Structure formats: C-alpha cells, structure tokens
C-alpha cells in the first residue's frame, strides 16, 4: 500500500522557499487586473460587438421551404423522421441510440422527454383547427385506418416529394407531380392513392405558414413555457436550420461545434472535442458522439490527475521551459 502511495506521489524534493521576499500589494494588483480586463472587454465590444442572428421559426421555414416542410411533416406522421426513430430520451426506438462494448448509457437513463411525432407534430395541432369538419373527418379516417393502409397512403404522398427534393438538390428539371405555388404558399402532390393525407398535409402547411404551429408545439398544461424541445427537434428534422448553419460555417464538417455565427471566435476551448469529429473512426461511427465523449472523459481525468501520472508529471523537469519562466531567478542565483 505504501508502495502504491509512493508511486502516486513520486519523488518530490521541493523545499519551502527560504530566500528573500519582495514587497507586493495583492489588493492593488487585483484591482488593476479587473480594470485592465474591463478595458480590454470594452475595447473588443466597441470594435467587434457580439453576434445576434435572429432565430428561425416554423412559420419562416414553411414559407421559405414549403416542400421541405411538407416532406418533414410527413416523416413525422409516418414515423421515419430522425426524431421519430431517435430512441431515448425521446422514445423507445433505436435510430440514434449509441453504445460502446457493454456501455449503453443512453438506454440506461431511459425516455425522459417522451415525444410521439405523429401525435405531437401533426395530428394534435391539426385537431386544434376549428370549424373545419372536412379536416376533422380526414384525421378520423387516418386514425381509424389499419397501420398498413396508413403506410400505403404515406408512401404514395412521400414518393413524389422525395423525387422533387432530389431533383431540386441535383439541379435537374423538377417533376410535374408536385406543384408549388409560392404566392399562395401551397404544395400540391398529384396522387390518388394517399387517402386523407393530402388534405392533412395541406392543412399542416397552412397552419405552419400562419404561425399557428409555432404556438401549438409549445402549449402544454402550463401557461408559461420555457421548454423548446418539441419545436427545436421538429425544425432540426427539416432543412432550414441546416441551410442557415452551412452558410454560417457551423456544420460538423466545418468544425461547427466550436464556431459561432459571423466571424467571432466562438467556443474555441472546444477544439479538442471538435477535432475528434473530423477523424476516423469517430467521424463515421454510428456511436461517434459516445466515443468522443468517452475519449474526452478519459483525457479530462488524465488532465486532473497529471500530478499522479509518471512520465507526464516529469515532463516539466525534462523539458526545461522552466528556465525561461524563472530566468531572472536563475540569473540572480548565478550572480550571487
């Protein structure tokens, strides 16, 4: 036991200082330091200010990218969106569940913020639209249909939208099965096999464009709202946030974790976290986030424990940067 203790402590020959002391005013130095930092922060503020890009809303998203919005809303309805397939803490699926060997912390902590994308993002908000018996009967028809029929309707509506999105991305001629009226803010999909889905999606788009969906996703039993999980995850499933992020160099492949909107330094202290996302196997692993967090956890522990790690704790003695730091001291010693 004493051997282990000695190993952890290492050889420490540091003697208490018995040399001279110079006069020193601690309080004065602290006051000057605060003054200098206030001055520096003020100069930087006057020169560069700070970024404040307006947040996106679901209303903006649906008006600017109506096809992307409709496609995303449909993926929430048919359970194929990223959020719908995510897994804990939002649901019991496994699309984004990560693990490493026997470690399954995401599963262990369970579903703490349950989200039913079909109900919360589409059916629930549509049910709040008043004076529209046709829409309400369409919702009732959809809910009463067997799962297989629902899936067939969803696919019949999703396929033309997928083709449209692919053609748009590739810059090819757009298929005529989807008609977008930018002025009216409508998306029409030519299909006869989608049952009540076209009416539901048209109503969802209309509700979003009016700004009603932004409010719907925040309402709960409480009057005051502070939890934006539902609208944020819905928007993250779509394309507007990503489009803006790419323009601002905030994507993961652009070292986005440490960047900030505009040309500001952002969270540069996260460079090591961000670094791992740029290299294999972290970059392409389906459990990349967990692997990065585990590596950073180990490195953080090592950082705290440097005084106990043989080799690392001896580096300062072996690489004499200390001679530069205490240059004056050694010079004075030499002259004596």
């Amino acid at each position, binding site marked *: 036991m004493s051997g282990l203790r*000695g190993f952890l402590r*290492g050889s*420490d*020959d*540091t*003697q*208490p*200082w018995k*040399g*001279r*002391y*110079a006069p*020193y005013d*601690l309080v004065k*130095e602290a006051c000057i*330091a*605060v003054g200098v*930092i206030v001055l*520096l922060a003020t100069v*930087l*503020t006057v020169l*560069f*200010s*700070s970024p*404040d*890009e*307006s*947040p996106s809303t679901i209303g903006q998203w649906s008006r600017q990218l109506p096809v992307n919005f409709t496609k995303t809303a449909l993926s929430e309805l048919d359970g194929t969106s990223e959020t719908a397939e995510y897994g*804990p*803490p939002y649901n019991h699926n496994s699309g984004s569940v990560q693990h490493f060997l026997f470690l399954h*912390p995401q599963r*262990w*902590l369970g579903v*703490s*913020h349950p989200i039913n994308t079909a109900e919360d993002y589409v059916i629930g908000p549509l049910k709040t639209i008043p004076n529209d018996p046709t829409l309400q009967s369409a919702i009732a028809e959809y809910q009463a249909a067997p799962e297989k029929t629902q899936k067939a309707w969803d696919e019949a509506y999703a396929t033309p939208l997928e083709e449209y999105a692919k053609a748009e991305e590739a810059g090819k001629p757009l298929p005529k099965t989807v008609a977008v009226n930018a002025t009216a803010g409508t998306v029409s999909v030519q299909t006869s096999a989608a049952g009540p889905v076209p009416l539901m999606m048209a109503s969802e788009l209309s509700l979003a464009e009016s700004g009603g969906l932004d409010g719907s996703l925040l309402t709960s039993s409480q009057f005051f709202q502070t939890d*934006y999980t539902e609208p*944020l995850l819905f928007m*993250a499933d779509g394309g507007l946030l990503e489009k803006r*992020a790419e323009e*601002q160099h905030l994507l993961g492949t652009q070292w*986005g*974790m440490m960047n900030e*909107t505009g040309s500001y330094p952002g*969270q540069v*202290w*996260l460079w090591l976290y961000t670094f791992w996302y740029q290299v294999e196997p972290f970059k392409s692993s389906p*459990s990349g*986030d*967990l692997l990065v967090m585990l590596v950073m956890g180990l490195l*953080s522990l090592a950082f705290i424990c*440097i*005084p106990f790690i043989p080799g690392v704790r001896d580096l*300062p003695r072996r690489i004499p940067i*200390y001679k530069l*730091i*205490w*240059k*004056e*001291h050694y010079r004075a*010693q030499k002259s004596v």
Partner: protein
Amino acid sequence: MSVTPPSEVSPAAKPSWTGRVREAAVEALPPEKLLPDGQPTYVASWIYIFGVASIASLVVIIGSGTILALKGPAWWHETGVGHFFNSIHMWSVELFFFAMVVHLWGKFWMAAWRGGRKRVWITGAVTFLVAVPCALTGYVSQQNFDAQWISTQAKDAMNSVGVGAFFNLTNFGQMYSYHVFLLPLAVVGLVAAHVLLVRRHGVVPPFDLQERAGPAPPTKTDADASSASVGARS
C-alpha cells in the same frame, strides 16, 4: 443590561464549535498568508499575470452577467445597452478562457503541483472543466439562431452518455438556470478553493538547477513540503 466582553469568557470553558472553526481557519490561513504584502523574489515573470487575469475576467463575467440577469434574458436583443453588456459578457468569457489556458500551461511547465500542491492543480483543472459546460449553457440560452443550432447539434453528445435525461440542451428554462446559478456557483466555489489553497501553500518555488546533476534526493511527502511556504500570486 451588561454584556460580558469576549475577553472575560472563562478560559477553562469548553471550546465552542465556532471557536474551533475560527482556530482551525486561522491556523490554516493566518492573516499574513491570506493577504500577504510580500512575495518570493522568484515570482518575477509575465506568466504569473494570467492567474490573476483569469480571476479578473471571472469578476467581469459575473458583473456583466448579473446586469443581463437583472434585466431578463430577452433584454439584450431589444436594446443597444443590453447588446453592449452582452458583448462585454461574451468578450470577458473569451478573455477568461484565454487567460486560464495560458495559466494552466504555465503551471504545467512549472510542475506547480510540487511541494504538496497537488490539490492546487486539481482544483484549477476541475475549474477549467466545469467552466466549459458553464459557457455552453450560456451559448444555448442566447435565444437566437446560434442557440437553436448549438442546442440541436450538441444534444446528441449529451444523449449518447445519458446526460440528456436530466441536462436537456433544448430546454431553455433548464439551461438558463444552470447558466446563471448552478454552474457559476460551482466555478466560483472552485476558484475560491483554488485561491485559498494557493494562499496556504504559496507559489511553487523554481526547480533547483543543481539537483539535476546530482543523485536523486530523498522523497518528501506532501505534508512535509507544504508546511512553511508563504506565497502570494497564483
């Protein structure tokens, strides 16, 4: 009605809890150690300013953050004065991390954990690690596009380790509470412990140049080495 002055308390009386705490505190940190007016002559390098610069930045962060908190989280989006204080807050955070990183590198190359100062290093390192989520919760509490993007992207890392179950980056109310109270409290507490430990143990002395040529001297324990040094700066 007369009040018995403290000097007339019988010395034979059993020491109170308060008295014991006072005696222990004064023994650990006598006033001349807590607020020294002298420093060892080896404390003469530009690297020493980064410790006090980190603390000064923290003071400015808390000052500007308090003003922002007093006016509410939406104020800085709506007024020029609010935006000014937000900018002060942001730049003092950048200065804080810059000063702290240089300070940590400096202390590493000094092997500042020597002579019974391991707890000084540990509290400093933990402060840096706790400051990272403290800043992150600030970024996701901004109520702008930056907050939307960072929260939706960083949530996956939190969820992957299970932290997302009780630390939800997309919950503004929760993040704001962490940012203005819980994590700053932890940072300030750690910095206070760090500074008191520096006061107790003093600034680490330089390596002895002669020792490198000679045989290794006998091992000295933490308790022995931390006994007598008086120091000032961190």
